[in-house]
């Protein structure tokens, strides 16, 4: 049985990982080694940062059995609010960055709280409440920005957006520069993973997704835990909104409203988190985002038509959930 348990564990984590490794090997051969060049690896990591951070927040929500459709719009709204706040402040350097970030996080957290309120008080489906938030946040970001990107007056955000981390060290070692957003992602993934797997809160997230009634009867404050997961997802969206703002030196109501929402859900699902709740991991979501990022990068390296890229991505998502279902059947057999 111990043996089987271990196999189960690797099946759970292994799906995305195995696909990823296979994909990397194939792509690297097909691209004659250019895929595994350090600079390309860093490029992929930078590209997946935003999707991965959204996916991390989404993972908490989905493990409780919910969904957050509002994250894309919240990226736009928090980015616009952050840009407005930054331009209104007479600060510079770290205080400016800190206050701007806090403003974005506060907006994201508040939106998450509003998402959760009807879910925990009236038992309304989160699909609906977050869909409503998707529209409201999008509209609000257009109203606040008058439909145009708001350019940052300060240049103090450049390092956050496009700077590199410990550039001197990586230079000395002849390694490619590590973008600051990638460091943010790494910190967030690790912190979220610890939160989910090692704290009471994380345990309760799984318990509620696995059996909400049993969790309630065990004395868990289900409403509070559920509220927090939507707040976390909103905060994740705010981080992405802030990072995009820093990257583009402006807050735009268009940012985040494209494929971000669906690709963040795709990262979660491909990473082995069950849409019915009770099961999943942050590390899986990271690998899910990485798989999608590698796929795009590889298709670009191989000059795959951009329309065809969408088809391939869809097929990969489908394949991932089919494999997940087959895995479940194998386990219960």
């Amino acid at each position, binding site marked *: *049985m111990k043996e089987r*348990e271990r196999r189960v564990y690797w099946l759970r984590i292994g799906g995305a990982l195995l696909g990823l490794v296979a994909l990397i090997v194939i792509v690297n051969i097909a691209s004659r080694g250019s895929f595994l060049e350090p600079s390309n690896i860093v490029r992929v990591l930078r590209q997946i940062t935003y999707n991965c951070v959204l996916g991390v927040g989404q993972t908490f929500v989905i493990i409780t059995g919910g969904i957050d459709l509002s994250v894309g719009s919240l990226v736009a709204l928090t980015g616009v609010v952050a840009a407005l706040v930054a331009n209104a402040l007479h600060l510079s350097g770290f205080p400016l960055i800190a206050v701007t970030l806090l403003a974005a996080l506060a907006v994201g957290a508040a939106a998450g709280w509003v998402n959760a309120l009807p879910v925990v008080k009236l038992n309304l489906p989160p699909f609906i409440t977050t869909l409503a938030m998707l529209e409201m946040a999008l509209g609000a970001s257009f109203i606040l920005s008058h439909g145009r990107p708001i350019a940052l007056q300060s240049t103090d955000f450049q390092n956050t957006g496009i700077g590199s981390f410990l550039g001197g060290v990586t230079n000395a070692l002849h390694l490619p520069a590590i973008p600051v957003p990638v460091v943010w992602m790494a910190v967030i993934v690790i912190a979220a993973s610890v939160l989910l797997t090692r704290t*009471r809160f994380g*345990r309760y997230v*799984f*318990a509620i997704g696995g059996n909400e*009634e049993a969790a*309630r009867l065990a*004395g868990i*404050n289900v409403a509070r835990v559920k509220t927090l997961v939507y707040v976390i997802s909103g905060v994740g969206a705010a981080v992405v909104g802030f990072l995009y703002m820093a990257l583009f030196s402006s807050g735009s109501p268009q940012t985040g409203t494209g494929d971000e929402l669906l690709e963040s859900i795709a990262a979660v699902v491909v990473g082995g988190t069950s849409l019915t709740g009770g099961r999943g991991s942050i590390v899986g979501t990271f690998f899910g985002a990485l798989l999608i990022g590698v796929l795009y990068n590889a298709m670009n390296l191989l000059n795959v038509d951009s329309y065809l890229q969408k088809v391939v991505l869809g097929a990969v998502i489908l394949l991932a959930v089919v494999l997940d279902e087959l895995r479940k059947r194998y386990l219960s057999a």
Partner: protein
Amino acid sequence: MRGIGKSFPGVRALEDVSLTLHAGEVLVLVGENGAGKSTLVKILSGALAADAGEILVDGTGVRIDSPHAAELLGIGMIYQEFTLVPQLTAPENIALGAEPTRGPLIDERAVRKRAERELEELGLELPLDVPVSRLSVGQQQVVEIAKALARRARIIVMDEPTAALSGREIDRLFAIIGRLKANGAGIIYISHRMDELPRIADRVTVLRDGKAIETRAAADFPSDDIVRAMVGRKLDAHYPELPAIPVAAPVVLEVRDFARAPVVRNVSFSVHAGEIVGLAGLVGAGRTEIVRAIAGADVPDRGEVLIDGERVRIRAPEDSIAAGVAFITEDRKAQGLVLGMTVRENITLAHLADFVAPDRLIDRKREHEAADAMIAELHIRTPGSEQIARNLSGGNQQKVVLAKWLLGKARVFLFDEPTRGIDVGAKAEIYNLMLDLAARGAAIVMVSSDLPEVLGMSHRVLVIRGGTIVKEFSRADASPDRVIAAATGVAA
């Protein structure tokens, strides 16, 4: 039905049961909870398959392997829980699954006509244009009956049809049954209520422990005899000796004037340290609802709960837990366990705060130690604390639920059907555990539908009927026929 037998894992539900039903008669099935009534009619209606025996309709042997097959044979089932689609209207429900069509479209007029015809035959009128969820329970039942008739049912099974009806609705139902009889239908009627038998039964069959004990014409079967036939056995001897409660034992749990709509009303009782109080009664009498409200699973409307003399304000399960109440639920799969989690995670779920290290992370090492200690203490048969709860047997799952509550400092234990569906060995272990808890000064309330269990494991028995305590028996006074008589409302 001839020689019907059915076994579930660990339980012999039916053994060599035979019964006949004539056209134009009402055969009433009575028996204790778990006597096999529901299993028997589920076999007849194709919801379950029999292991042995045969079923004959109009003298020819038939195979009923699905509800659809039963329907084709003219067997209609009116379940306790209705099977209507609440959003659809009465005509739509009556036609459901057999809609008359015109070309590719549903023939709405024919749907409505058919409903009108069936209701006319029943001599009843119903609003036909509103969703059935807006109808009263009695009206919904009429729709259910019309649905069976629309499928040309000649054998109609009703499982406790009056359980949720008001007096006037019951009168109307009995009138309908009279008309169905007159039209030549045979009716099997399951009942818990002795008082309605004389009004409706032509013949009565008593089931006990999965066997048909006795069948007599109703006129010739007084209710005293029926109760005797229902109980008619000695108590099983395998219950442990209950130690006496010390005279000075303090009251641990006191419930005063407790109410919770729609079932529980006027409930007051107290339990001493070391005492086991059994709540007896029929299914639906309100026993589970009483303990659920004490546990905070449902919020009580009125009344007080005192633990060790202190008033507890109950608004959610965590309030009761904080006051020292442990609630071991009836349905461990739906309410007791997170099946996809490990044994360890389930055991520590309600007391995780005790396993948080100063750095706010869960101390897994201590968690493992606590889980392993519980596994050893309760003899939980599992390959280890990392086993997924789903993979354990029913008895061992129940022990995991118990372990979850033993980790805390609970003083009051509420057991709801603690041994349902588990094997004899695990049962004995759970009984011993209850005695252990009592010996350590816990107050225990046990709800059980297993009468010998209630009598064998309780210092006192409270009989619940209609959401309130109708009778209290000391251990010495509690006999099966007295408890059954109180639970069914026969003057003993």
